[in-house]
């Protein structure tokens, strides 16, 4: 009886302490591998061009450079946005990749839609899918107009305004 108690005590200590060690390692390791890093300040608004260059209903591709946090590096990369003037002081900026498989689409003036050359998805001026395999409307950058300049912020998936 006393021997059984002794043995049970040993087992409790062994399993208990190893459990503690395992969780003290597993929990930080899971956080380290699975949680997003501390959000660094997202890239500030990048000016991409003048509002005056834009005509309502005529999407314009504007090129710009932005810094992207890539792990321990910040890479400066060239990218573009299809900017559509939607009001006197309002613009919408679409990210340059088709939502189907990421090909670069362009504005087709004849068909009055955005046309992706890869699998012929088409999108309207508002970014909504008109035809083809694209699963969702075009992704948008946050965009605003300040002092006549078009400024572009972080990208937002899904196309909802």
């Amino acid at each position: 009886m006393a021997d059984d108690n002794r043995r049970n005590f040993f087992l409790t200590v062994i399993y208990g302490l190893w459990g503690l060690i395992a969780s003290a390692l597993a929990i930080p390791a899971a956080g380290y591998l699975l949680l997003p890093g501390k959000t660094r300040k997202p890239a500030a608004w990048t000016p991409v061009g003048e509002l005056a260059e834009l005509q309502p209903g005529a999407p314009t591709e504007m090129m710009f450079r932005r810094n992207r946090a890539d792990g321990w590096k910040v890479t400066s990369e060239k990218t573009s946005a299809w900017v559509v003037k939607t009001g006197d002081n309002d613009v919408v900026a679409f990210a340059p990749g088709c939502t189907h498989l990421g090909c670069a689409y362009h504005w087709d003036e004849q068909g009055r839609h955005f046309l992706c050359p890869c699998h012929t998805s088409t999108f309207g001026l508002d970014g909504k899918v008109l035809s083809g395999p694209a699963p969702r409307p075009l992704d948008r950058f946050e965009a605003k107009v300040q002092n006549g300049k078009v400024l572009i912020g972080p990208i937002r998936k899904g196309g909802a305004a």
Partner: protein
Amino acid sequence: MTLKPALDWIDQRTGLKTAVDEFLNEEIPASSGWRHVFGSMAAFSFMLQAFTGVLLALNYAPTPGEAYNSVRYIMTELTGGSLIRGLHHYGASMMIIIVVLHMIQVFVWGAYKKPREATWIAGCTLLLITLAFGLTGYLLPWDNRAYWGTVVTTQIAGSAPVAGAYVQRLMGAESGVGVVTFARFFAAHVLVLPLLTMLLIGAHIYLVRKHGVAPEPGETAPRKKFFPEQVMKDTVAIFAAFAILFTLAVVAKAPLERIADPTDAKYIPRPEWYFLFLFQTLKLFEGPLEIVGSLVLPNLAIVALFLVPFIDRSAMAKLRQRTLAIGIVVLGAIGWAGLTTAAVMTTPKNLDQTADLDTAPGSWQQLAPEELAGIGYYRLENCASCHTPGPNAVGPDLAAGVRKDAAWMIDHFKRPAQIVPGTAMPAIALKDSQLNALAAFILKLNPKNQEALTSAPQFAVDGALVYQQNRCGACHQVNGAGMKMGPGLNGLATRRSRAWIEEHFANPQKMSPGTVMPPYKLAPKDGEALIKYLMNLPNPE
């Protein structure tokens, strides 16, 4: 509901359960107890280092420069990153302490004696490997202490007669500590040493099992099983060590100094604490005798350690009769403690590696504002991660004398690959005026003033950036650069008070009637940086 059928099914096909049972039911002497916990602790320590090491490797870039940035990323950006590096950093020290305690226990009780000589030799090799882990891992954060510590290590290795040059070449340090050294140390740390350790731990444990744990001399009590009593004792000891380590890692962040700077003449390199006694031994011998302290004595000690079971061939004795062994350990401990204390006492404190050298007159004061702003862009774009000043950087040494003109450089900043095909340099997204400032500074860079890259205080750099943005140099002169329409700004602090300058920015007409200087409304942070910079300009010559 029981797991037994499942376990039996697995056991019949793999023999796993039988193997674990055999391992746990190993018979050990009745005299086994708390003094036998160190071997398990050492094995745990190794597994913990492997676990945290793998986690670190998942976010680590094993090249100089990049390495530093990725370690900083782990420490500052990732959840638990600081803790995991802390466990690995302090865990290394803990492992050394445990391995040495394990060895002392075996030594004092004489457990190395026939037929356990091979076990002892495998253990001594494991001790050396553990030290090699510490030595190679020390370089991997690529900060100042890593770099300078390794410079000293490789120099010592190189000083050995005949073999020195080869050992140094093996370490990749033939022409100084650089990318090859880094690759060699990294490969040793994560490939060679772990593999050797696992093989030797396997051999060591096999030998312990083959010969059994050494019993007390003349022990007759019936043997007992390893599980559960001894396993419980091992577990408690492991847990205690782990708890201390975990607390340390949480409370004291593992150090990360400034990025390695081979030109930092003020840096005082010191090895990790467990090598300090060797460092101090070195200092006892001078001139041609230096090699006695750096190589002869340490290597003799290692040989003596390996030969212990062949020197002492007497039969097992009771602990009370092992006065000589105890005496050796006590003397060794006193000697070690004395040397380590002496090393610590004689180590001048390094200047705070992050301090801004506010009052010390430095060469930054001789720079024109445009050049100082260039330092600002240099820091902003993190040029130092590749162009570490000195001969061993990833990118070219900018201080070695740039043979290109500013126009070439600015082109290169904008489109690196077009100008230098195959370059790894990324394009720099700065405005032309900013690129000008950067180029202006790099043109002036030489081995004498390049220390300003790191030593120029951030306030001065920030101030110079504001100075450039507001084109103050269109009217004013600083250190001979700029126009003479307005008064020169050198020695401003001796002529005007801070309040006067502040007021003058806001309302020049009020402070100096008739002036052509326009009012400036600076953001408070910018104004503060600019004024602090101006107030710290040197007096005119």
